């Protein structure tokens, strides 16, 4: 059931709801914290589960949502919502996806089958966010160069998805801002 996204219009400052999703450990919470203008609302708790304990350096996980806000230029106020990554919190994906204007899927290239993971989230959010308002950000490409950006484009294209795919370091404000800029400019082009 597609949910109506807010219309885009030039002129006064407008709110846009943007959802960050992707597998656990891809950096959704970090990205929102990196870019938000104010203090971020988080719902992270200590990890207790078996496989999830094996991620190096990761001790906390989001179980509800993250929420932050940032301005982009004079025109946009972005309301940033981060989802939990794990499948058991899928019900939160539908709650947070409802009414979203755009979607950012973060990938962790150090994990097995990162392209397949991205496809899984693209499919899960397809009922809520149009494919033309989706951007993929790939993290840890510096330490794990394969699959590369071209591989992502080819493999996602073969599945019928053609989002822009960019390298991102979610700890860097500028990188996250670039993802959001691409997303918003896609929307602006759409309405020209």
């Amino acid at each position, binding site marked *: 059931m597609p949910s109506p996204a807010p219309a885009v219009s030039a002129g006064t400052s407008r709110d846009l709801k943007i959802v960050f999703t992707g597998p656990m450990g891809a950096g959704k919470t970090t990205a929102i914290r990196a870019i938000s203008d104010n203090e971020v*609302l*988080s*719902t*992270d*708790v*200590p*990890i*207790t*589960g*078996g*496989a*999830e*304990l094996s991620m190096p350096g990761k001790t906390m*996980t989001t*179980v*509800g*949502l993250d929420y932050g806000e940032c301005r982009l230029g004079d025109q946009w106020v972005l309301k940033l919502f981060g989802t*939990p990554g*794990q499948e*058991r*919190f899928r*019900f*939160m994906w539908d709650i947070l996806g409802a009414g979203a204007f755009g979607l950012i899927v973060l990938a962790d290239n150090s994990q097995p089958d990162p392209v397949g993971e991205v496809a899984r989230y693209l499919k899960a959010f397809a009922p809520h966010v149009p494919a033309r308002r989706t951007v993929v950000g790939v993290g840890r490409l510096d330490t794990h160069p394969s699959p590369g950006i071209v591989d992502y484009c080819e493999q996602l294209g073969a599945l019928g998805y053609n989002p822009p795919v960019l390298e991102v370091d979610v700890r860097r404000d500028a990188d996250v801002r670039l993802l959001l800029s691409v997303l918003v400019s896609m929307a602006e082009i759409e309405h020209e």
Partner: protein
Amino acid sequence: MSSSIGSTPGFSSAGTALRLVTIAQLAELLGELQRGTPGILSATLASADGFTVASTLSDSQDADRLSAMSGSLSALAGAMTREAGHSAPERLILESGSGHIVSMNVPVPSGDLVLTVVTNESSLLGKLLWSCRNTADQVVAACVATPQPGSAPSL
């Protein structure tokens, strides 16, 4: 005893710091809660990150879904009271025409657990809250009484 809970069918890998014998005790406490309180349809203990620790639900998938939602709601409730400048929430009560759902945090040494009880319309809220509080205290006592792996020699 050195069995790994995570590899044991029927138990989630949650609370790897909890021994099987403790989890069996917790399951018994949940059963007593359900049998001793009118209107309770199910009682489930989850880890704060949404894994089932023990439940009276026979369908483990039902228990796992309820556990994940309990983890989310508990964290959201905590975020909301923080935002309002309140202290940590003691319990979350959902009321509908079909009954109550009560969720409360249970702090144990291995990390917070969340006790969630679902009732039908015959439950009495006061009695329900008293019973849940009582069970939560017993859960804490059971987790404290059983030596945690690594903290004492195995028997």
